[in-house]
């Protein structure tokens, strides 16, 4: 993405953002609340529109609306902070819906693939339950399986563990680390520094709508260059 700008009213939430993510790369976006990192993540599959600049995925410019946009979103997996599983559908139906209705897979094929994915994220035994009957951690893993079922080119994670109890954070992070190791292209907005250290190829630090610093995890955590990043790390790592 290059020269991306976005305003919410008077608030300039994304200021001239330039970011390139290579295939297979895991980029972790961190920063204080209100720094625009979630907005950045949501802009990539156009859940938020942008005022100017451009976003390219796989060399193609992000369509503005309609069928072309829907096709693009099918190629971009998204995991939300609040899971957003379809509340009226079973876990299995949550995962098969996209492949069947968007990709045109047969029910049998979709189900088989869904069970594989649910096994991979460790919730296959919950397949017939409704989302509300699962714990937060389980719901989030189902959400990851739902996104993976579309065979996305890139996965976006918008604070995937922020709504979880501390005990459940690890089960979700483990799933994400495994995914990163398998070579998935990932953009992860998170406050989990442990995950950034373990799985990230690159850390992007945002503050006040700008990318302040970009570097490898080791370098960022041990030797941050900007004052803003030092201040931020001091606050979160200090206790």
């Amino acid at each position, binding site marked *: 993405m290059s020269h991306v700008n976005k305003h919410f009213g008077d608030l300039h939430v994304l200021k001239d953002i330039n970011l390139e993510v290579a295939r297979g790369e895991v980029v972790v976006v961190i920063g204080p609340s209100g720094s625009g990192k979630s907005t950045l993540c949501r802009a990539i*599959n156009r*859940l938020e529109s942008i005022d100017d600049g451009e976003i390219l995925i796989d060399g193609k410019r992000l369509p503005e*609306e*309609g*069928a072309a*946009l*829907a*096709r*693009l*979103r*099918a*190629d*971009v*997996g*998204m995991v*939300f902070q*609040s*899971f*957003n*599983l*379809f*509340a*009226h559908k079973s876990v299995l139906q949550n995962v098969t*819906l*996209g492949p069947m*209705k*968007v990709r045109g897979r047969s029910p049998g094929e979709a189900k088989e693939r869904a069970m594989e994915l649910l096994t991979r994220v460790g919730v296959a035994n919950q397949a017939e339950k*409704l989302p*509300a*009957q699962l714990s937060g951690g389980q719901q989030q893993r189902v*959400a990851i399986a*739902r*996104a993976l079922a*579309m065979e996305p080119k890139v996965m976006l994670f918008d604070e995937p563990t922020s709504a979880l109890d501390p005990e459940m954070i690890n089960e979700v992070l483990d799933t994400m680390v495994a995914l990163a190791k398998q070579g998935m292209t990932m953009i992860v907005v998170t406050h989990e520094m442990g995950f950034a250290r373990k799985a990230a190829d690159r850390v992007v630090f945002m503050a006040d709508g700008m990318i302040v610093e970009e570097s490898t995890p080791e370098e960022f955590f041990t030797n941050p260059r900007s004052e803003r990043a030092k201040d931020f790390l001091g606050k979160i790592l200090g206790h």
Partner: protein
Amino acid sequence: MTDYLNDFASLFDQYDVLGAFWVNIQLTFLAAIGSMLLGSLVALMRISPIASLRLLGTGYVNLFRNTPLTIILVFLVLGVWSQLGINLSPDFNRNFFLYAVIGLSLYHAAFVCESIRSGVNTVPVGQAEAARAIGLSFLPAARLVIFPQALRGAITPLGNTLIALTKNTTVAAAASVTEISALMKTMIEFRPDVIIAVFLTVALGFVLLVVPVGLLTTWASRKLAVKR
């Protein structure tokens, strides 16, 4: 007292009270289907991403919700049928009946639309975002994700609309349909001796029709509530 009861009983020999109620039930049933289909369509327009459709939907609701039902029915009969000469059925009575169904459907569709829209508001915005994020465009997202949840959230207001519709079928008398209120007028005119009983019969008839609707919607709204 016995005399009064005998007089009252003779009313049922003289007039087809049950038959008249049956007309109301038919009107309710058909207009419920009609208004549900049309109301869903208008609701879909009102939540669609296309501004001109939203405007059209809003216009529809404001026009029909704010027009008295009597005016709509009289317009259909005197304007569309009498003036424009459009016959819906070669049978004279059937023609009026069908006009009444259309009028009731047009009018209540506005309320059905608003009920569904209130149901849509019970669906968290994240559900729509998740649907879009897996690549569903507006119509499939609405059909597969939003509406199934919205309808469950709309059961109570839809039930209220159905109750209003049931009672509003009496306005079909204005479209010359011989339903129960039209018959009531006749009975009052020709059998003033049992006028109180006539009123009570009609009132009780509607209570019997409407109470189950209320019970059913309360039960269904609990049973079908989406667990979050």
